């Protein structure tokens, strides 16, 4: 408010001076204020909010946003309340903590949504690790035609078509979607454990 007041009084309305005072206004945000604004934005966002979007909207440096989020994240951890702030699908999201799921379900009167079939999960695993993966490539690994599993995954928007592969038959290629990251609680694809690691797990 103070800043705006100053603009009003600065007689000359020439661009340069106006810009100056705007910058001044921006600089006036303290880190504590920024933390609060970011919390509010993450709260209203429908999807996980990326640092880039926050930086664009708030006209701040990404590094400053990053440190503000770290501060906010620390606050959430220290408070250990019903909400958590977490990094998911390339952005930040406020959600409830897992331990209260029973009470939340009772209140919302919802049940866990239908689980994916084993076939769909296997197909999804192949696509997640081999993406972009084609139907023949999935068949090669699973030893089963996976057409209906792929349809289910497309319907649930867990995978998306990624164009055709320039090879015999020009088969469609599939990759995982942003919804996949959200539904499986992943920051990004690199958070998936490496496929080679599963070998040690099995034997």
């Amino acid at each position: 408010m103070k800043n705006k007041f100053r603009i009003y009084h600065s007689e000359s309305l020439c661009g340069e001076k106006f810009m100056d005072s705007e910058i001044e206004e921006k600089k006036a945000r303290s880190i504590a204020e920024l933390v609060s604004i970011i919390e509010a934005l993450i709260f209203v966002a429908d999807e996980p909010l990326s640092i880039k979007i926050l930086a664009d909207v708030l006209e701040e440096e990404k590094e400053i946003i990053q440190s503000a989020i770290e501060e906010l994240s620390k606050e959430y951890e220290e408070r250990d309340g019903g909400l958590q702030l977490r990094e998911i699908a390339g952005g930040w999201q406020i959600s409830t903590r897992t331990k209260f799921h029973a009470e939340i379900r009772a209140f919302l009167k919802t049940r866990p949504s239908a689980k994916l079939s084993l076939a769909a999960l296997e197909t999804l695993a192949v696509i997640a690790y081999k993406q972009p993966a084609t139907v023949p490539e999935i068949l090669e690994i699973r030893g089963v035609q996976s057409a209906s599993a792929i349809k289910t995954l497309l319907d649930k928007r867990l995978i998306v078509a990624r164009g055709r592969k320039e090879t015999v038959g020009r088969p469609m290629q599939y990759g995982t979607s942003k919804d996949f990251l959200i539904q499986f609680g992943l920051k990004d694809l690199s958070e998936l454990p490496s496929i080679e690691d599963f070998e040690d797990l099995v034997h």
Partner: protein
Amino acid sequence: MEQSTEQLTFDFFTEKPHIVATSSTDEINLELGAFAGPLDLLLFLIKQEQANIFDIPIARIANEYLKYIRLMKSLDIALAGDLLVMAATLIEIKSKMLLPREISDETEEGIEDPRRELVDRLLEYERFKSAAQMLYTRSTIEQAVFPRGQIETDENNTEVNVSVFDLLNVFQKIIARQTEEIQIEIQREEMSLSEMIKNLKRRILQTKQLNLLEFFREMQSKTELVLAFIAVLEIVRTESVKLLQDKTFGVIILSKV
């Protein structure tokens, strides 16, 4: 998504295979206990026989596998092609193992174990099976996390602010569209290839000989003409008819043998 309208369950050893009919598709999925395919079944049999995956007793495992397939047949279950392909692969490997292997001076590694490719596939499949398990766990955990409820915005607010006149306006447009739609005449689908072949067969049976030029002239559209041509090719290939032509560029006669 809502599915699984009926479930038929029966026992197989300790596993419980069941048929899942989905309402959304025409397909009926057979889920054999926890088996998601031939590789999965094979892994199960190898574990059941307590065999080493790197040294599969192929004869024993192939027997078990075929026993399983026979049981499915006896239950009158249409076998998935993939299961049969694996059965054939197992038998092929088994027969290769029986053949005396050429002992050459080369190093032992030079001799390819016929089981090698299958083992590689099994190992790779097993890794993805574990990955699927990991995804399952993750999604279960994730289902216990709730983001905030939806905030009403212009995008998701389906409620619209309209007056009676707006509604009337839209209603009139719909009525107008309705009458337009009625005016559309639907042309009869042109003949299918099988109809065309049937037609051609009948003609040949009746007349014994058929002038192709005349036959093609009867066609009323390009599509029919193409179909007629394909029908001729097909009928020459599959039926006891032959094509006769007296001289170059002469009339072609389709004739019964």
